[in-house]
């Protein structure tokens, strides 16, 4: 997918060395550490990872939803030339919903069960501008129509529990886009939905993105859906970004063994049934007791190929391996590509 977008000196969103840590009785939970990212205006970035990898925390940090009473946030987040982390709470609040909007995994629990969906949407309008109730309602109605809700004039007075799952997520999208934000963060937007509805919702997000020119961050654990929507993909593991690449590159030439593992666990229609899906053995690391070296080392089956046991003792850096392709791995680039091609061949059904 190509997107228009002026070449900018600064990316639309730039995250520099983001760290989020929660002090607990058991120790400091480093949920996110050293995350740096940038997204150009109008593009879609997918952040992929298992639960606990830090992808949702990263999203909440962008939204300013991390409770500063219980967590410390370090680093910089630049949104269209404005730094967010140091921003006062009131300014952040004004930003939320107006500049950056967010939709969530479970539209049932994310909508307030006691309020009519129309009221929840108009409440979002009223949070950012003064407008007559009638006008707000008309806006909400229009937006409901835009997100594909049939007979919105009737649905607008429904309660969330009276809608289907897909409808609810459309309402969430309508609510997120009602103030014409510049950016939408979608946190696992399809995970709780039926497979048939998933595609519709993704399609809706894509088409609205085109229409409004929004920048999108799509957070998911499912590499399978990324291919259809994202321009770029960032893979997170253990609170870090371990690989970033344009979507096509990542699928064709993944270099980080973890990305490879994720790719091998995607069920694909074109694969032969004889090929066994290969989940990555082991569990994600505890955010309190991270491994000393590479955080993926305990589950990596190639770490013994690195001389001097650097994987056990040295944290690898996120380094460019090609233009727009960054990898965090001690393995030499050549060896990474060899391993990657071998695995992809097996997946493709070759011998």
């Amino acid at each position, binding site marked *: 997918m190509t997107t228009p977008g002026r070449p900018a000196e600064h990316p639309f969103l730039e995250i520099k060395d983001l760290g989020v840590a929660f002090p607990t009785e058991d120790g400091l939970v480093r949920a996110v550490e050293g995350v740096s990212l940038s997204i150009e205006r109008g593009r879609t970035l997918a952040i992929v990872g298992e639960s606990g990898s830090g992808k949702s925390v990263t999203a909440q940090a962008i939204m300013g939803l991390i409770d500063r009473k219980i967590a410390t946030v370090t680093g910089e987040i630049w949104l269209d030339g404005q730094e967010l982390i140091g921003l006062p709470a009131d300014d952040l609040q004004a930003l939320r919903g107006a500049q950056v909007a967010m939709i969530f995994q479970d539209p049932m629990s994310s909508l307030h069960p*006691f309020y009519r969906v129309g009221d929840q949407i108009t409440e979002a309008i009223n949070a950012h501008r003064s407008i007559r109730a009638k006008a707000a309602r008309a806006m909400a109605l229009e937006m409901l129509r835009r997100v594909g809700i049939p007979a919105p004039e009737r649905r607008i007075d429904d*309660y969330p529990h009276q809608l289907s799952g897909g409808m609810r997520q459309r309402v969430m999208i309508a609510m997120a886009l009602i103030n014409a934000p510049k950016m939408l963060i979608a946190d696992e937007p399809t995970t709780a939905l039926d497979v048939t509805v998933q595609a519709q919702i993704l399609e809706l997000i894509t088409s609205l993105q085109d229409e409004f020119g929004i920048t999108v961050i799509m957070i998911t654990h499912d590499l399978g859906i990324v291919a259809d929507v994202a321009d770029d993909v960032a893979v997170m593991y253990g609170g870090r970004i371990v690989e970033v690449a344009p979507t096509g590159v990542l699928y064709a030439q993944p270099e980080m063994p973890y990305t490879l593992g994720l790719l091998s666990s995607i069920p694909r229609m074109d694969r032969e049934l004889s090929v066994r899906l290969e989940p990555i053995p082991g569990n994600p690391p505890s955010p309190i007791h991270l491994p000393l070296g590479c955080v993926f080392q305990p589950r990596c089956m190639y770490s013994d190929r690195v001389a001097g046991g650097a994987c056990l003792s040295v944290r690898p850096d996120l380094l460019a391996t090609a233009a727009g392709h960054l990898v965090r791995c001690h393995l030499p680039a050549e060896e990474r590509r060899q391993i990657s091609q071998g695995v992809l061949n097996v997946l493709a059904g070759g011998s």
Partner: protein
Amino acid sequence: MAAYVVRRLILMVALLFVLTAAVFVLFTLLPGDPARLTCGKACSAQTIEANRHRLGYDQPILTQYEEFLSGLFVGRTFSADSPEPIVCNAPCLGYSFTRHEQVLTLIAKAAPTTFWLAIGAFIMWIITGISLGIFAALNHGHWPDRLVMGISLVGYSLPSFFIGLVLIFFVVIKWSWLPFPSYVSPFDNPFQFLQTMILPWIVLAVLNTAFYMRLTRNQVLETLNEDYVRTARAKGLPERTVVVKHALRAGLTPLVTAAGMDLAYLLGGAIITESIFNLPGLGALAVSSVLESDLPLITGITLVTSTVIIVANLVVDLLYAVIDPRVRLA
């Protein structure tokens, strides 16, 4: 909704029939003879029978129950041989031969005390319990939370008769800050009314405040973690709106059920508190009626307090449906 209410009311009437019938049956099953008990000293067999006739216990139990029911709808006359028989107009709950008064009059006299006791304590514990609970929840994990929870644990573990007696001993007897409780209507003497009610209110409120503090805190904490509260924040709503409109509205809804039923039970009479503080309420009246084997009074109080509780149950259910649109009444 209307059909639902009608069905519930019909069910209520049926339940009240069963309850009053059960009181009649239980009363006859009790050992001892109310005719003998209320006959006086050294009672001969003839006077016992005369007394039994006077009380109406010489009739078959079914007839007695029928008369009770017909009294409810058309009224009754008691002590027909008196120069001035006791005319009890519908709805007649009966006549207490122990107290020489109509049951409805006795209940009507006791009800305001219990009402004021319940309402005052209720307001006290709802305000303190909920505000302290919210305060604790918003300061979750910090010292205000721990302090509030510690206090609630202490309040929770003190029995009401203990608090009552300790308060009377210190506040009234030892320090003489308040006179001995002597109930008056708030309309007759508001100052004495407050002087009398403040301690009973505190006694009833302490226990319930502790409970509502915990309930509120846990509910609010739970709700603050709900996805829809996160959504509200993501919309850019002010924190005040997020907490009050989104978190509290949902978090405090279960309290409606608890509070409604607690208030209803209290309106049926707070036996221990009324006894300690010498309050002429329904609880105290109920205890006396049982001790005096006064069937008409027992039946009347049962009927009235059960009605209050059943109606409260219905009101709570209706209120819940109004608050939470997911609840459907059918």
